[in-house]
């Protein structure tokens, strides 16, 4: 009887833990500002094409292949297959006359990557490729 009640509590606990609604999966991102800051940097240049091309080169160095790219929108999406799958989207847009804002978002298998260190590493490589410092977004 005691065992049965433990099992019941266990099942109840698991149901609660797995209680993520479909809506939450579609919308996601409770802490959007924090996430956006983590995924964004600015670079002191007015050359959007240069930044996008270097983002592509960076993705290639990191083992990605490019799926789609659009020069006008400054968007690149790429996939890495290495036993796991990472999908990444990088967007570049003008923040001011002398600054480009780069945002990167990535998904590891079915999970969005929300670790700041991972994005720091990406921007560090992009920064080296551009010969420009990556500045945090205020």
């Amino acid at each position, binding site marked *: 009887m*005691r*065992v049965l009640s*433990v*099992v019941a509590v*266990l099942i109840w*606990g*698991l149901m609660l*833990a*797995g209680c993520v609604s479909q809506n939450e999966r579609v919308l996601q991102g409770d802490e959007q500002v924090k996430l956006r800051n983590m995924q964004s940097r600015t670079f002191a240049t007015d050359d959007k*094409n240069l930044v*996008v*091309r270097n983002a*592509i*080169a960076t993705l*290639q*160095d*990191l*083992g*990605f*292949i*490019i*799926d*789609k*790219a*659009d*020069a*006008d929108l400054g968007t*690149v999406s790429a*996939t*890495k*297959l*290495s*036993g*796991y*799958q*990472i999908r990444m989207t990088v967007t570049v847009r003008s923040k001011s006359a002398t600054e480009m804002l780069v945002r990167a978002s990535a998904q*590891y*298998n*079915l*999970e969005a*990557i929300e*670790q700041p*260190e*991972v*994005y720091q*590493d*990406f921007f560090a*490589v992009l920064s080296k490729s551009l010969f420009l410092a990556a500045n945090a977004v205020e």
Partner: protein
Amino acid sequence: MTRSLLLLCLLLTLYGFQTIPAELFKLSESTLEERSRQSRYFATENEVNLISSGIGVLQDMGYAIDEIEKDLGVVTASKNVDATDSGQVAVAIAFMLLGGKNVAIDKEQKIRVSFITLPSKVKEGYIARVTFQRIVWNDRNVISRVETLNNDEIYLDFFEKLSKSVFLEAHKI
């Protein structure tokens, strides 16, 4: 009994977490080697000609072009081909003859390729970089492998064809 239930509970909780490798976006020691395998320098100022030559070579190799963005020097292409490996089939047959279970063997693969041109940072001209990846399905329609192809021969062959097509020598970088 309670202890094993607790253990089960712990395992189920851990199962819910995926571990994202910490080194995901760090350049590895093999980065330079891969870059040089996948890239060649062409002394040309005509990027469009280099891109269209790349497209021609991919078509010759049986690929269908999926996306092109010439302002960024991006071409992506793919093809679905047979993935049967005679060595793997032989092992599966031997295993069955020895009384083992029916072993899954690779059946079909989708090969994806991106061909990118980038202005050289050190001299006039362009760097062309090509990367091949593949997803392999076995005879049970389950993905058995996802990987980047690192076979030197594939890249040497591609750049030899590209070099002929563009009438320019492909220089190692």
